[in-house]
């Protein structure tokens, strides 16, 4: 593999790792604050899966780069503009309904994404995808059951989901955004063509929304930019908190 393809692969791994890490960090904010104990445990367990996935992608990136950077360096020593997580993953938790809806929209995407990535010509990415797929499938089942329950629940729970949908839907276009790096890696048989995921993702969303009595918004303006490291105002705050300790005490060890 030549140097430029190596760099592309590193960035691709960072994009994947960043989305998992940022969503994992968001879910971790629920620790001790869940509406009931079981859901506190559920959200933090999902968080743990995602952070584990992020570690694997960062470790692989570090291995390809081979310059002595570690998974921690990638997580803690990069700024907002060099983070490539999907915009949806950084959106604030809001209430439980908003967290669940965000989880559902992202998990439905991850399930489709990893189902494809496991066929990647890059064997490490393929195995990581295979492993992640099992986990995100479970996350999807959990969150879709809650979307059904809340959407088709009381007037208030339904109203809150409608509100959450209003907050989050504009960021769903970003899930499928692609740039020249994607194009090059798709060409090489490594990356996933996100266009092919739109239809199956929408099918899952519609299926669950129908049961939850929610309408898929139409003709909405989509906010994009994660591929270029352009974020909403929320990511900076999240990173500030997440990176505080390693920034204040460089090289600190457990």
């Amino acid at each position, binding site marked *: 593999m030549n140097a430029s393809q190596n760099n592309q692969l590193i960035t691709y791994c960072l994009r994947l790792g960043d989305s998992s890490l940022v969503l994992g960090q968001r879910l971790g904010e629920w620790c001790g604050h869940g509406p009931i104990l079981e859901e506190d445990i559920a959200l933090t367990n*999902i968080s*743990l899966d995602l952070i584990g996935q992020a570690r*694997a992608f960062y470790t692989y990136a570090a291995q390809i780069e081979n310059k002595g950077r570690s998974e921690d360096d990638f997580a803690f020593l990069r700024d907002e503009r060099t983070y490539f997580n999907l915009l949806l993953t950084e959106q604030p938790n809001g209430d439980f309904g908003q967290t669940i809806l965000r989880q559902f929209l992202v998990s439905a995407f991850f399930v489709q994404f990893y189902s494809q990535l496991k066929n990647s010509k890059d064997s490490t990415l393929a195995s990581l995808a295979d492993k992640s797929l*099992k986990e995100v499938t*479970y996350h999807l089942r*959990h969150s*879709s059951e809650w979307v059904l329950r809340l959407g088709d629940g009381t007037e208030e729970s339904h109203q809150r989901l409608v509100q959450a949908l209003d907050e989050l839907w504009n960021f769903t276009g970003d899930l499928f955004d692609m740039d020249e790096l994607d194009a090059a890696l798709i060409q090489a048989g490594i990356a996933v063509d996100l266009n092919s995921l739109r239809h199956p993702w929408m099918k899952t969303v519609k299926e669950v929304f129908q049961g939850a009595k929610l309408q898929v918004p139409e003709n909405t303006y989509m906010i994009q930019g994660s591929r270029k490291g352009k974020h909403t105002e929320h990511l900076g705050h999240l990173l500030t908190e997440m990176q505080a300790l390693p920034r204040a005490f460089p090289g600190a060890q457990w």
Partner: protein
Amino acid sequence: MSKILTKEFIFQLLAEIPDPEIPVISIVDLGIVRNVELENQKVRVNITPTYSGCPAMMAIQNDIVSRLKQEGIDDIEVRLVVDEVWTTDWINDAAKERLREYGIAPPEKTSTNKSLLTGKPKMVNCPRCGSPRTSLISQFGSTACKALYRCDDCREPFDYFKCH
């Protein structure tokens, strides 16, 4: 250290190491230990995580190193590998029986439930009274690999080792 190391011997040692979260089964029973490679006096143990974020991996690595050191083995490398994806199918039947005796309902054979959204939980028998009348309390239990159930006959709550 004059003994000639064999893979079988190393495996015997590893089979004595309990899983940190579920002490009735060993890391070999669980299928976490994938293989052992020997190079002169160097021992390399390849392990794989159950779940990506399994917090016990570090403890398991440390346990492996300290158990092998007790036998005078010093040149040890524990590597995390993911080329084969862990599944509950790798847990052997004897270990499943020990899980049941311990109060954890063992995973059913062959893992992933294909139906994505409507996947009804499989029938899980109560590990205490054996009743098939059980209900799911929470999809996420005390560790990443378990879900929480309740027996509708003897009323005991119990952990179920999820199919994965």
